[in-house]
């Protein structure tokens, strides 16, 4: 019991971080599963959300709500713009998409740093949230607990949309068989724009709500992108449920792993990915025939 108590803060920290990553990774896995796009600017969308939150928060609760809205909107706009940039590359392969989005992430990321400066920026939260809160015998930043609640609700809502709604059914169908888009007569450009806007909105929201935990910076953008990629691979490409489990796992590696096995924690991600690849042979991994 003492042992459990000792590691509880790590576990809670890991859940917070894992939910943050899930919000980002779910967007990435959607873009990937539905539109077959590897979006290397996804971490930069997270950054945009963070800066949006920094701009609109003013220490009030309304400011916080506004931050979530602003982050979502900024992310959706950025995502939509990305889809516009990708469209002319149709038929030129995934590599070009990846290089383009990487170029965009470098340009936008560095411009943002020039505009906002390199100093650490944190959104202005309501005073109550700046105080530590005692939970099960330990101090936690109040905001972290609020974030767990909000992100948990978001995940539940997302789950309902994907499993119960008509749009969700369409999305699941498209992940399973991308040619279906054409068969249904849905405009593929519209699908690309829609999916990247939704993915962007998720990353922007994560950036806004996550800003007090992981402030906007180039470093944060890179970290979030890489860890989301690992989550998408481990969780199964295009699978939201898989991403959820994988995100919580990566969150624990990030905190509990560092505490229990600091030397080994960087390799744990590697190992998780290797195991996922070797044990499972999901059909998505064998997208045969198509070359870039």
């Amino acid at each position: 019991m003492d042992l459990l108590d000792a590691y509880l803060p790590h576990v809670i920290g890991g859940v917070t971080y894992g939910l943050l990553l899930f919000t980002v990774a779910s967007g990435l896995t959607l873009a990937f599963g539905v539109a077959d796009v590897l979006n290397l600017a996804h971490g930069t969308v997270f950054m945009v959300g963070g800066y949006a939150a920094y701009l609109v928060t003013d220490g009030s609760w309304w400011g916080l709500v506004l931050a979530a809205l602003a982050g979502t909107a900024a992310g959706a706009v950025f995502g939509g713009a990305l889809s516009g940039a990708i469209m002319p590359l149709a038929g030129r392969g995934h590599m070009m998409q990846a290089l383009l989005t990487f170029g965009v992430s470098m340009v936008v990321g560095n411009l943002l740093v020039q505009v906002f400066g390199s100093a650490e920026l944190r959104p202005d939260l309501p005073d109550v949230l700046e105080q530590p809160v005692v939970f099960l015998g330990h101090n936690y930043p109040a905001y972290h607990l609020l974030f767990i609640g909000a992100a948990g609700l978001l995940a539940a809502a997302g789950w309902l949309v994907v499993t119960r709604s008509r749009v969700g059914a369409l999305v699941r169908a498209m992940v399973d068989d991308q040619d279906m888009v054409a068969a249904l007569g849905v405009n593929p450009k519209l699908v690309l724009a829609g999916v990247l806007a939704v993915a962007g909105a998720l990353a922007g929201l994560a950036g806004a709500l996550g800003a007090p935990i992981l402030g906007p910076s180039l470093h944060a953008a890179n970290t979030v992108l890489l860890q989301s990629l690992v989550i998408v691979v481990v969780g199964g490409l295009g699978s939201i449920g898989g991403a959820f489990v994988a995100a919580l796992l990566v969150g624990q590696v990030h905190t509990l792993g560092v505490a229990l096995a600091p030397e080994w924690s960087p390799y744990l991600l590697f190992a998780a990915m290797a195991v996922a690849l070797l044990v499972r042979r999901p059909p998505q991994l064998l997208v045969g025939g198509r070359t870039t």
Partner: protein
Amino acid sequence: MTRLLLDTRVWTALAVAALAALPFAVDAYTLSSLSGIISLGLLAVSVAVLTGTAGLPSLGQVAPYAFGMYTTVVLIRAGVTEAPVLLLASGAAAAVFCAVIGPAVVRTRGVVFLMLTLAVGELTAQAAQQWKAVSGGTDGSGRLDPTVPFWGLEPLVDEPAVYWYCLAVAVVVTALAGWAARSTPGSLVRGVRDNEARMRADGHRVGAYLLGVFVFAGMIAGIGGSLLVTSQRMVFPSDVSFSISALVLMAVVIGGAASLGGALVGAGAVILLRDWTAAYLPGQGPLVLGALFIAAVYLMPGGLAGVLERIGLRRRKEAT
């Protein structure tokens, strides 16, 4: 006369001669950066072999590059500084690594392949960063002893000597890669790239061919990694970071995916641009490079060669 002008062997010989004469024309700093560029040029050749021959654009060739690099570091620390040993061991270590991860990687295609190689490359870089005994972490390996080109010869200390060594190795390895691409196995792999289904139907062991290219490309990258140690005599985990992978893939795109010489030139152009922006627009490097990525993707669909083609500098090549 026109014949002679179009003969590549003449041009290649002239270009190599011009490059070999550079130490008489430029300062020591430029020479040592060029040695580093040659090392990355081999990495680009390795990517070009994968992308051009097999149609597998990798975002993670820094992984075998890192294996070659750190194999050389470990050997030099152990007192083994003779070039033949360093090159062979580094190439072999990288090839073994690729043979281990290859089976899982080469069965994927398209965006999944990009993603997997990216993850492998990035996690290798992280592992390098963490394994301090070998890499020294962020602080780097520290100064290493110079490479000895052959038993009984003087160590490579001066910038021109290092440069000539790197150039010689790169020319030999690139020629070898070009020869391999023209060989029978090379044409089989191109067959897979162009029509995988038909090759399978014809009973070819597609997976084995691709694994073979993957290992061969890894070996080239490993040798490139060894050259970096010889040229810089100090290496860092950031030498194998994701941005290097992306930069090199970009170089290959600019050079025209299937051309090995183009890959070398593309690498030279991209890295020189990076260094120049670092010199004249300090802190703005990433911004300029990012803009280059965007511009190249839109404006140079066929790489540098495509641009030359469009402005009429050379005749169109036959349809691909």
